């Protein structure tokens, strides 16, 4: 069980859940509280809280999901497997429970089951990044087992290394959830409840990606943000569409500066220039999951320097500036070795002494 506790925190992304999640405010607070307890390393308290809330709302998928995470974190993998299995049965369209089921199976070295669950997660949501990364690890592990059999090598060493997979700690892909305090206009264009079944967003012509049509989801998408994306409040300067007129000259300059900063970040990534790449992130940048800044930097370095060739191209860049804060949304075409992935990304930046640096990075948007 130690294994689970050690390997789970790796890639988790924790963001405050907000009222935007689409359910009642009180319930959203519950989610937040349980999430915070998990994040704070108090899974037993989180579990108690989840159980308490579930007494009132026994069907609530979000609560049950958090309960599963709390069970996994408090050393009850069998309970967690039961919880997630039931969720997959009742909500087969949600990728997250499959992913977490896979993580738990992988920790028990049941790689075939883990693989099946991850393949289901991806079938459910083809753009689901965490499941892809996890599945990549499982494939690599299974491949090395097959290679050992092919070469008739003694595989005892290789088999003892379990793949390290990321447990998803929140339902409904938080990376697309809005951040409290963000300017209203920059509010997430997607209805969070939809995210679980989101398909890759079609390229937006000018405006930030509009909300994908809500598919059948367990949580009613009642949030007002489900409305079509409003026009940006401040400014919008898609590099690909220079026709957009900045609201004011100073804003135009700021938009220009933010755009350059973002392009420089992409260039440093492509060049595998770790100093410039990591330098693009502000001190206050919150690494995903419970990682420390240095652990996150190490992970990034391993991921980036390990590739023989990386190319990151940005398109449809739109920048919204609000004083010393800015949000850049764009389409990111990432190529590494044979991998070729296009996704939408959002960077939140702050201006420190005339230099824009990243404080938050999320996919989607």
């Amino acid at each position, binding site marked *: 069980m130690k294994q689970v506790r050690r390997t789970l925190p790796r*890639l988790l*992304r924790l963001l405050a859940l907000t009222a935007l999640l689409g359910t009642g405010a009180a319930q959203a607070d519950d989610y937040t509280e349980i999430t915070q307890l998990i994040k704070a390393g108090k899974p037993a308290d989180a579990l108690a809280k989840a159980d308490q809330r579930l007494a009132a709302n026994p069907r609530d998928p979000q609560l049950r999901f958090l309960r599963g995470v709390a069970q996994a974190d408090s050393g009850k993998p069998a309970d967690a497997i039961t919880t997630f299995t039931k969720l997959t049965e009742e909500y087969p369209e949600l990728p997250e429970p499959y992913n977490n089921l896979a993580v738990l199976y992988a920790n028990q070295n049941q790689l075939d089951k883990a693989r099946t669950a991850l393949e289901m997660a*991806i079938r459910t949501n*083809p*753009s689901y*990044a*965490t499941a*892809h*990364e996890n*599945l*990549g690890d499982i*494939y*690599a592990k*299974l*491949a*090395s*087992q*097959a*290679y050992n*059999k*092919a*070469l*008739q*090598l003694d595989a005892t060493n290789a088999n003892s290394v379990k793949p390290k997979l990321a447990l998803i700690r929140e339902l409904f892909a938080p*990376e697309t959830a809005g951040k409290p305090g963000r300017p209203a206009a920059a509010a997430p264009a997607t209805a969070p409840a939809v995210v679980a079944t989101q398909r*890759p967003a079609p390229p937006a012509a000018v405006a930030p990606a509009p909300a994908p049509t809500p598919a059948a989801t367990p949580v009613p998408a009642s949030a007002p943000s489900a409305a079509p994306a409003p026009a940006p409040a401040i400014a919008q300067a898609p590099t690909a569409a220079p026709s957009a007129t900045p609201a004011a000259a100073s804003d135009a300059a700021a938009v220009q500066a933010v755009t350059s900063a973002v392009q420089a970040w992409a260039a440093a990534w492509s060049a595998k220039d770790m100093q410039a790449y990591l330098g693009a992130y502000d001190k206050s940048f919150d690494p*995903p999951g419970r990682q420390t800044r240095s652990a996150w930097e190490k992970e*990034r370095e391993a*991921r980036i320097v390990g590739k023989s060739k990386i190319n990151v191209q940005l398109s449809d860049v739109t920048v919204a500036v609000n004083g010393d804060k800015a949000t850049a949304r764009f389409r*990111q075409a*990432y190529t*590494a*070795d*044979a*991998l*070729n*992935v296009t*996704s939408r*990304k959002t960077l939140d930046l702050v201006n420190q002494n005339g230099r824009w640096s990243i404080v938050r*990075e*999320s*996919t989607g948007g």
Partner: protein
Amino acid sequence: MFVELSAPSRRAAAGTLFLAALLQAAPAHAQSGKVRRAATQPSTEPADTKAPNLRDGQAETRLLAVYKLIAEGRSREALAQAETLARDYPNFQLAQLAVGDLLMSRTRPIRRMGDVPEPDTARSLQVATTLEELRNESRQRVDAQRSRPPAHSIPAQFLELSPRSRHAIAVDASRSRLYLFENTPKGLQLVADYYASVGKLGIEKSLEGDQRTPLGVYFITSRLDPATLKDFYGAGALPINYPNPLDQSRGKTGSGIWLHGTPPDQFARAPLATDGCLVLANPDLERILRTVEPRSTPVVIARQLQWVAPHAVQADRKSFDAVLNAWRNAKTQGDMNRLLGFYAPDFQSYRKKPLNEWTQVLQAETRALKGRELHLKDKSYLRWTDSADTMVVTFGEVAEGARTGPVKRQYWARRGQQWQIFFEGVIG
């Protein structure tokens, strides 16, 4: 959260797999599958302990089907089939290698077949060697299917095969391939062919312990019960008569050349792997074991088989018929001078019996005929041509009025335009 891995493009990466060059074998291969199905005969032996789907040749057929899917970019189906294959034949290393590559191709590009991550240095040599052997095995299997023998053709060695030989075997060492024929009233029909391993140092055995497989015309001498053999020999063994009289006349040494199976932990062995034996996968060897008869089944082992239409050997057969008939006439007439003219000065029979001693045998035999005509029944002519031209002749020698007679084998050598007997003996 960084999205560095994602779905849609992955398909393409998997499709770029290793077999672009290896794999144009599809149509020929499909054909061979048909041949095989048609020829499959129900086993009279009780089903062994393995699952019934472990039929001879099937593992390779399925492996090549996986390769074909890979070549077509259908990596998802390829992986599914490779995994089933690896489950059915867990010790089939090429199947495991295909599974590994197909899985790995989902995480990174595969540059070539068996793109195993760099192993630690202690193992790297072993790994590199094994991988090279597996790639060779794969190439041999694919090549053998890509260049199938033309329909209804036979190896040129089989000039004439008596109905007493109900089956025949020919091995093409250059292709690591064993061909099994049924001798039907319409001639030799290819019924199956299998991947087969030869000696570590290749072919042309000449000395004991040289780890080479002999080349020549041989016969299966017996069938060894697997219960009496070490696991190493797998499903059983069929010894052949190396060194044969031609080998002995050339001073070749060694013994114990068998057709045998594989150890339990290994489905197939590398193309060059044995101490001189011919080694087949157990399901394939089992089929041969229950099909062929000892003593009457010839095994031709060639560097490279030459496939000819059956009528192409007709002229050679007729001309040798005439030679043998002349010998028969001389013997029938008891004309010792003329008869001895057919024998080479360096003639030896069993136990190195020289011609002057064999002359007494011949004299006794002709006297026993008492003027009756000698008939030759069930003739087989197997021609072996290397630096010399040799005819391995088998027949039943029956005097007029008698119902049976001895089965004899002669080795004839062509010296210039003349054929001479350099070995003769009774084999049954």
